[in-house]
């Protein structure tokens, strides 16, 4: 492994402040440079590690850029058909209710082809975590218009910009999800700055704990970038995301559970 280091004297085990979690495998991520998927994977892996969930976790990967997610996090995985991850997760959780079950889906997967599965899984209040990556585009197939593509935004299938009169409006599916009684915690986050990474991690930690308490569906949208699909540098894409995506998809909690449940969750007898 080739590496470059800062001041050598500080590099001692006792000074370690941040290291890639061991739950991430050694496989090189297949994502483009600067893609938020990698950051989100790492946060998820850190939560699984820190909550001691590796032996309980069963993840469901989608169809889309993150289809190979099962190569990157060292837990048991199922790969679902496009849009069907919530149904697959329902099957898992109903039969293995003590496991930590989550899906990881993109906007096309969750908010277009899988809309019915998403809504009904949340409506039944399946006790799972849904992680929803919204970058407003179909990345894997080469940058086509997604259900969440912004008005006027160009893609390979909206080359003159999304005309909402013809192509429909961007779907704020998380807002819909938040209205369903089956959901317990619904939030919209991002991973493009350290502060947002921290917030996303906190949200995932909460969701993991709520699942242990059988609280219902937790839903975390992560507004993310797609430098290749948006045809920008990674840094430009994060800036564009802040200026455009976050206006349409503002960050923050959409449904907050009573806070005391979090405190209760902090003190269960450790297994």
């Amino acid at each position, binding site marked *: 492994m080739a590496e470059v280091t800062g001041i050598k004297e500080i590099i001692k085990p006792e000074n370690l402040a941040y290291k890639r979690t061991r739950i991430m495998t050694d496989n090189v991520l297949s994502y483009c440079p600067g893609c938020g998927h990698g950051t989100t994977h790492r946060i998820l892996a850190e939560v699984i590690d820190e909550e001691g969930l590796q032996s309980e976790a069963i993840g469901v990967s989608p169809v889309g850029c993150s289809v190979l997610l099962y190569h990157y996090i060292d837990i048991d995985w199922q790969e679902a058909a496009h849009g069907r991850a919530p*149904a*697959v997760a329902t*099957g898992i959780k109903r039969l293995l209710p003590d496991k930590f079950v989550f899906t990881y889906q993109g906007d096309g997967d969750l908010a277009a082809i899988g809309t019915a599965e998403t809504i009904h899984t949340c409506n039944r209040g399946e006790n799972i975590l849904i992680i929803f990556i919204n970058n407003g585009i179909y990345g894997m197939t080469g940058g086509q218009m997604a259900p969440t593509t912004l008005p006027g935004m160009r893609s390979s299938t909206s080359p003159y910009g999304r005309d909402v009169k013809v192509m429909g409006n961007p779907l704020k599916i998380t807002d819909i999800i938040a209205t369903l009684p089956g959901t317990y915690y619904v939030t919209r986050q991002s991973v493009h700055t350290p502060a947002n990474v921290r917030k996303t991690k906190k949200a995932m930690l909460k969701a993991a704990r709520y699942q242990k308490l059988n609280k219902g569906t937790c839903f975390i949208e992560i507004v993310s970038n797609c430098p290749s699909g948006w045809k920008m540098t990674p840094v430009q894409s994060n800036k564009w995301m802040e200026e455009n995506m976050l206006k349409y998809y503002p960050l923050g909690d959409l449904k907050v559970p009573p806070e005391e449940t979090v405190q209760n969750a902090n003190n269960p007898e450790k297994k």
Partner: protein
Amino acid sequence: MEKELRLMKGNEAIAEAAIRAGADGYFGYPITPQSEILEYLMEANPSRTTGMVVLQAESEIAAINMVYGGAACGKKVMTSSSSPGISLKQEGITYIAGAELPCLIVNVVRGGPGLGTIQPAQSDYFQATKGGGHGDYHLIVLAPASVQEMADFVDLSFELAFKYRNPVMILSDGAIGQMMEKVWLAPQKERSKTYPEWATTGKPPERERNIITSLDLDPYAQEQFNKKLVAKYNEIREKEVRYEEFQCDDAEYLFVAYGTSARVCQKSVQLARAQGIKAGLLRPITLFPYPSVRIGSLAEKVRIILSVEMSAGQMVEDVMLSVNGKVPVFHFGRMGGIVTTPDEVVDYLKSKIIGG
């Protein structure tokens, strides 16, 4: 525990047999003529007795994907539907076949295409036996001809599904699903407490992570996987063929028919023999694997083979492949949800004898 005698609909028998087979989960969506399966399970509420999960999904698509999730956990799971619903499930079925997951899919066939009719038909034979979804795969397909077999084949299906890590379909029809007959029900089996080693149950530190997927981006690896499937299907062809013969020993005219049509043809054999026509019946019980070898050898002895199916002629193609030109092969059957009568079959046979 003793076996229990009950008078039941075919659909109810499947549901009760599933509970007794120790099934872990059922996921379904209502559609005529099989809604009794879901209704029976909801009323029986096995979550209180065996712990079996029963869930009404929002669609057939969701139901089959719930089956995918449960099956990938190594659980005994099943779904049921009728023709239009089975078409919707095809995406999930091909993923299940591609991920090599064991499960049971029940198709209580009704007439098609499209919304078709709610009356019994056998027009889903191609879909059931030739794959149904995309890609090279086969289901193991069992064709019950009685309410008793509706019940018996549930346990058999799970056994075969787990033995070969392959989805199994019970290909029934609206007649067998709806009719009532006496049925001996097997004693209650306990639900399995162990998991196959490939199941996703949460990764303990001592093993590698289990990944259930049907994806391989490397075409060479995918081809190896396809070859593995072919080898599995060939093993199934070799070991799991099931059929039943009725008065075939001296038969000069052979009916080949499954399910409801086989029941009709039993009577047709008797009617024909009363008229001095030596007819016999071969009833395939497995439609995949197909009893090709036996039909091929019977073709050495008979003059004509008549495939009787409630379709435009689907299984007849497999009969022809089995016979390989040795004797003339014909098809007869009603469509659109109409059950063929025994007389019609004999009349058609006679027209072929006289005409031929």
